[in-house]
């Protein structure tokens, strides 16, 4: 199935980019994330436990960030498996700066669902995937806005993933 959308940020593009590449932020945004460990360069392994409606699941997910083109685009690969089935996806994330500050994020991805969820839950999958995606991005917006507020109050602390010369 296709997952596409647009998310608007008040925070500027660089802040959003930083958030998108910050494992702590990603962990906070992933719905039901119980743990996330680095497993290589731009590779993370997370354990997610969530329920949307009747479907509850515990998933082990591998996230891979590739094709980084800061601060504009990257490709996110997701490989997850759990009791209800497995999930495999790839999506591109594009960040565009808005005039007057702010940024717009466009995501365009393909999600393959397999296993029990695919064969029983066809009519729920679309709704649930969209819901989880929405949750992820609304938390990302929160995270980005709070980073902005923080950075306005406190001195800039160099962050490993930001582009300092």
């Amino acid at each position: 199935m296709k997952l596409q959308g647009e998310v608007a940020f008040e925070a500027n593009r660089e802040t959003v980019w930083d958030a998108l590449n910050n494992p702590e932020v990603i962990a906070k945004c992933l719905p039901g994330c119980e743990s996330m460990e680095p497993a290589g360069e731009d590779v993370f392994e997370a354990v997610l436990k969530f329920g949307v409606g009747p479907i509850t699941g515990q998933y082990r997910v591998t996230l891979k960030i590739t094709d980084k083109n800061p601060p504009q685009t990257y490709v996110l690969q997701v490989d997850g498996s759990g009791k209800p089935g497995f999930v495999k996806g790839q999506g591109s994330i594009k960040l565009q700066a808005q005039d007057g500050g702010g940024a717009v994020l466009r995501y365009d991805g393909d999600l393959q669902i397999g296993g029990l969820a695919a064969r029983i839950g066809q009519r729920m999958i679309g709704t649930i995937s969209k819901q989880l995606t929405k949750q992820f991005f609304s938390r990302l917006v929160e995270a980005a806005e709070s980073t902005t507020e923080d950075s306005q109050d406190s001195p800039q602390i160099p962050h490993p993933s930001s582009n300092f010369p």
Partner: protein
Amino acid sequence: MTTMPPASKQAGEKWVGRSVPRREDLRLLTGRGRFIDDFELPQLKHAAILRSPYAHAEIGEIDVHAALELPGVRGVLTGREVAAMSRPFAVGVSPAPKYYASAVERARFVGEPVAVVVADDRYIAEDALELIEVDYRPLPAVVDIEAAMAADAPQLHEECPNNIYSQREFVYGDMESAKKEADRVVTGRFLFPKYGSTPIETYGVIASYDPFADQYEIWSNYQGPMVGHALVAQALGIAENRLRWIIPTDIGGGFGIKTGLYPYIALMAMASKRCGVPVKWIEDRQEHLIASATGTDRLTEMEAYVKSDGTILALKDRAIDNTGGYIRAPEPGCAYRSIGNHTGAYQIRNLEREVLVVGTNKCLTAPNRGYTCQHLYFSLERMMDKVAAELDIDPAEIRLRNFIAADQFPYKTATGGLYDSGDYAAAFRLALQRFDYDNMRQWQKEARAEGRLIGIGLATVVEPSVTNIAYVGLAKSYLERRKEHPKSGSGEAIMVKMDPLGKVHVIAATNPQGQGHDTVISQVVADQLGILPDDVTVSNVLDTHQRLTSITSGSYSSRFSSAGTTAVVLATQRLKEKLFRIAGHLLDAHVESLQNDSHKIFVREQPQRSIEIRHVAGTAHWNQSGLPEDMDVGLYGVGFYNMPTSEPPTEFDQVNSSNTYGFIAEVLMVEIDPETGALQFLKWVSAHDAGTVINPLLFEGQLQGGVAHGIGGAIFEETAYDENGQILTGSFMDYLVPTSMEIPEVDMIHQETPSPLTALGSKGTGEASAMSAPAAIANAVADALRPLGIEVNELPLSPNRIWHWIKDAQSSPSQ
């Protein structure tokens, strides 16, 4: 070689032909039926199957230690152990891909067994499944028939390049002349979907391995053919007499689907041996929908060479059947089993065929009700309508012009089929008349003028029954066949015995799945002996250790009403002969001078010279030396009947693939709602000729069921996959079996042209409209959508599909 005995004249046709209520119903309706799940054994444990979630994946390590530690778990059997304990199943293609009861190094369809857990109960077994870790390495999957044969397709088996399991070409008659003589060629391309029959009872197996006797005892609701028994014995590497199969009397529907059970029987047999306990496995509905059996999906390309008067001179076709991740017996029957009736009800003498059987990452197949006759007739009957449209001839007329005539029976088809009897034009005319065809066409014209999408659909098909297993030989060329032993036949065995007080008991193994065999047996025996059906008791259990069976035993391809009942007649006649010989001996009268009524045998011209049947029986049991000198002790008759028309294929690849051939004509009318694509049935007449109807009540039941299955296949049912081989229809939410609300009233009319080949003149009737309704409904929809220039070449005809066709037609400029 047995000759066909004449129908009894003395007792009169009292019970055959009557709607005797079913004796099975009382026990089934009051919960006293005994289905596979009702059987228990001491220390019985329960199995659950771990199944591949991937359509195509390499299987690495399977870690079962956590599962084994769960309290209540008795053991786990993995695929590699299955490969160590068994051989691949034999199948009629060469080279053959290796098919075991479980995936071994690779899973090739979603749902393929990967491991089996045996535990104290099913709940624990399923808990244990979740604790098994399998290292899957997914591979690209292919689900489309043509994509599977392409050069860059994922290869499922190294033995079968381009995923082709079987491929052959056939030519019958004189194609060249026919092509020259033709005025026109009409072409068509048809896609028939993959679906099943969803019997209300799923698969069930109880397997018990006895290590001391080195013997297996199996209970299962298998439906035959008993070839499956030989296949499992071979796979397990044991002698057939060490594999006892018991098939309970009560089975909740087969429809050909329960032919695909035998690999699970092997799997559970191995689980029992491995875990040292008897094992019961009852398939749940989800398992059934993803990994039991369905019909094949098929792509057909057809060319009809026709004259302008509508005569079909020749057919050329290429049909590609998809049997899924593996090919298992009785496939490749899908491609060859209907060869005898390939030209249907028509006098088409010239045929060129290419058949292919391919594999994709879908679940496996079995002879789904109709066994690809529905596929064949979908193409053939759509073609008849296409030819009619192109030549501007009425579709009813074109069929009448091409029918085999009543005086041509018995009719040998170009492909070797031997149609025993029929009068197609008469039956079809009956149906058209009942439908009020001419007036309906007129009404359709008027309705069309108002913008309504009304369509009339026809289908006229030959219903073959009693499979001759010889057809499997067609998978190999004549030269290859010559190297092997020939195969043929359709045998059935019945014993009728009489007890000391003169009461009759029938010992049968006809493997009913709800058709009412016992009721029919009692009617037939009653007629033969001049007694009441209620006086006849029947025990109908197939047990390879306690019954005589043949390799073709089982209930499939509607064997029972023709081969089965003939065996009943034979057996009863033999019992009767013995009774009369004993009576003649005791009365000192010639056997030919004797006659009987329900309780005595008497001299026809001198009725006072009589003896009660129970005294005759009493003599046979109590005073064995009072019997005629040359007579064996024992009062019973055995009929083991094989239809004489079941012969091996000729060197020209002609074979009588079935034995009796009935006829069905569908005439129906539909309306399509252009706004929603929804289809409504307005009128439906269905004419059936299955020879002598033994029990009209049972017959009607078969026909109604056939209609429901036919509607299912035409409009609702599909075992659907996405492009990654993930099955989308894993529950009844998405696999749509029509409910009673979706089935219209069908006006059933009958004609009887008795078969000269069976004792009662009966033919099979079990497939019925399952094979003709999809074609007729497709023709009706095509007729309804003709004003929009829409072609109907695929199923199911969901509203979504129909609406998109209408929308595309309306938005593109007309030609």
